[in-house]
């Protein structure tokens, strides 16, 4: 399938695609609109590293610190604390689901975002997380400082104890006092050193509108996605389909089934149908004299493709043009010709073939006003006759020849209707006795696989397939040349 075919299939399916997409979009809209509102609130934090407060060029460290704090803000202890501060009646897991923290840019900013069922809940949780993170960072640094100072403090305590135990005028006192002073001084210095800081830059505000659901946006997106998916599914379905291609391209259908389309017959009756059978007749008459069939079996794979319809209309069309056209009902199982032509079913084919007489088996039928050209013409018809047990046995051998030979003048063309070839051997038995076979297809119902099975079987039986007649076809020509008439022939 090339690109043009691809888009042709899509264009052909446009209303199905549109319908499916609209359905999906409305389902998404409904689901989305009926889901609970979600509000979102954010707090911005600024991070300053200890070294950055003395040296402005340590941006990398600030960024690294912001990333570290973002991770910290996602840890369970911090979130548990935030939950506690917020006072919201939610579990830690829920709080974790509602919270997210991301570093913003590379200047050391953090954005804490909280979601909640109300604007207030979102703001509270966001603020609480900011507070919890700040406290956590401070506590950690306090802890580190305490650890750092632990040995210094121990020494200070030891020196203080030693001083207490010394006599006020002890010679060792000045040295120990100096040492004590120095240690206390260094402890103070260590405590007043700059620290890493996290501060609120902008506090959370209660959002005015929910961030979700967004039914319109969701349904528009769903519509677009559904359009693409439905279009492509249609293309795949078409590629896998066993149906005949829709549309009016008889050449394409001919190529697919391997035989030329001799006529595309529209549904119904009247001028377009007559015109289609005129086309079929012209195809037969255009064949070189040596190749023109004198007997044609009308075959289809299944019931209902329009075999009897085709056989009768071909007989009418040919009969209008020339004398000596004979129509035989070879469908001994469910014969239809006698009813459609308003004849008695028997005597007919079975009576002749079982040597029960030929009297009354052959009828003369008018071609009908719509087919008549000039003088009224007639064709001959033999109905199926009485029902028989074994139609294949009755029809085998030289049955067609024996039927034809009951006429005083050999017919110029014999047309034989048959039962469905996919179900019964009768059709092949008859086809093998004819000069040519016309395969009848239903443009809407026939399946390519079935058609190929039948054409293969007919070819194997030794019969020559002339081409196919496409019933219930979309016929454009009548539309485009509406009001024009064929020159009388």
């Amino acid at each position: 399938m090339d690109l043009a075919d691809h888009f042709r299939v899509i264009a052909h399916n446009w209303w199905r695609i549109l319908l499916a997409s609209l359905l999906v979009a409305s389902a998404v809209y409904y689901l989305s609109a009926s889901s609970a509102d979600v509000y979102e609130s954010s707090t911005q934090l600024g991070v300053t590293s200890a070294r950055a407060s003395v040296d402005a060029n340590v941006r990398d460290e600030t960024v690294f610190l912001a990333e570290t704090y973002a991770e910290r803000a996602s840890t369970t202890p911090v979130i548990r604390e935030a939950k506690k501060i917020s006072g919201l009646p939610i579990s830690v897991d829920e709080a974790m689901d509602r919270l997210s923290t991301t570093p913003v840019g590379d200047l050391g900013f953090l954005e804490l975002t909280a979601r909640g069922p109300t604007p207030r809940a979102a703001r509270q949780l966001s603020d609480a997380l900011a507070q919890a993170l700040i406290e956590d960072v401070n506590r950690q640094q306090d802890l580190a400082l305490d650890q750092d100072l632990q040995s210094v403090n121990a020494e200070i305590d030891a020196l203080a104890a030693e001083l207490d135990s010394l006599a006020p005028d002890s010679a060792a006192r000045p040295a120990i006092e100096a040492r004590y002073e120095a240690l206390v001084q260094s402890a103070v210095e260590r405590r007043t050193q700059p620290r890493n800081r996290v501060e609120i830059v902008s506090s959370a505000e209660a959002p005015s509108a929910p961030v979700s659901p967004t039914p319109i946006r969701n349904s528009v997106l769903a519509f677009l996605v559904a359009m693409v998916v439905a279009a492509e599914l249609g293309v795949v379905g078409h590629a896998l389909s066993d149906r005949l291609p829709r549309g009016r391209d008889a050449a394409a259908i001919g190529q697919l089934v391997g035989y030329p389309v001799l006529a595309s017959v529209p549904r119904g009756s009247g001028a377009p149908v007559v015109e289609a059978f005129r086309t079929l007749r012209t195809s037969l008459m255009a064949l070189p004299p040596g190749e023109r069939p004198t007997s044609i079996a009308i075959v289809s794979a299944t019931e209902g493709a329009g075999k009897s319809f085709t056989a009768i209309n071909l007989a009418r069309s040919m009969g209008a043009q020339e004398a000596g056209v004979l129509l035989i009902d070879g469908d001994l199982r469910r014969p239809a010709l006698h009813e459609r032509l308003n004849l008695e079913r028997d005597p007919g084919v079975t009576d002749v073939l079982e040597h029960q007489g030929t009297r009354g088996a052959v009828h003369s039928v008018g071609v009908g006003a719509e087919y008549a050209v000039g003088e009224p013409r007639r064709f001959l018809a033999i109905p199926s006759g009485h029902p028989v047990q074994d139609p294949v046995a009755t029809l085998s051998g030289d049955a067609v020849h024996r039927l034809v030979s009951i006429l005083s003048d050999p017919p110029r063309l014999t047309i034989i209707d048959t039962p469905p070839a996919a179900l019964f051997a009768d059709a092949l038995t008859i086809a093998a006795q004819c000069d040519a076979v016309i395969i009848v297809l239903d443009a809407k119902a026939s399946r390519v696989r079935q058609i190929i099975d039948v054409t293969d079987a007919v070819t194997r039986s030794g019969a020559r397939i002339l081409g196919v007649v496409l019933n219930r076809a979309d016929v454009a020509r009548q539309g485009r040349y509406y009001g024009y008439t064929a020159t009388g022939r």
Partner: protein
Amino acid sequence: MHVLLVCTANICRSPLAAAMLARGLADAGVAASVDSAGVLDAGRQPPDEILDELRARGLDEWLTHQSSSLTPERVRDAELIVCMAREHLREVVAVVPEARPYTFTLKDLVRRGGAGDAPRATGGLSTWLAALDATRTSADLLGSSAEDDVEDPFGRSRRAYRRTAAELDGLTAQLARLVADATAS
């Protein structure tokens, strides 16, 4: 020499192709009369799109064309019948079966004519056509084929008319060369 071009209504493809072929043959120095016919009823004028295509090519003497119908006499009078599609070929042959050796679709004739021996070598138009006919089978006659049919623009967009006109430009030019070669003594 008389050439007949055939299409459905004789208002689009065949009159345009006839005008083009007539000029092509005249330019090649072939004394020929070129005429066209349709399989539908007569007395209609080509649509504006066809008149525009004729004007664009300076083929103004063909602007007064009125459609005419295919008759057995016209088929018999022609020495070469060029059909726009297989369906027209069948119509011609069904009317006058003897016309088959000198009736071709335009595309098929140009293709076969271009592939075989040089027309001049076969000894005249009718022997050249008969030689080409001998290579055809009845399968080349039945159904429809994009390889043999010139697209019918009637009732379609202006672009379809332009596409058909452009295709006919090329095909009629090739046919004029082949016929000129076949009739050269």
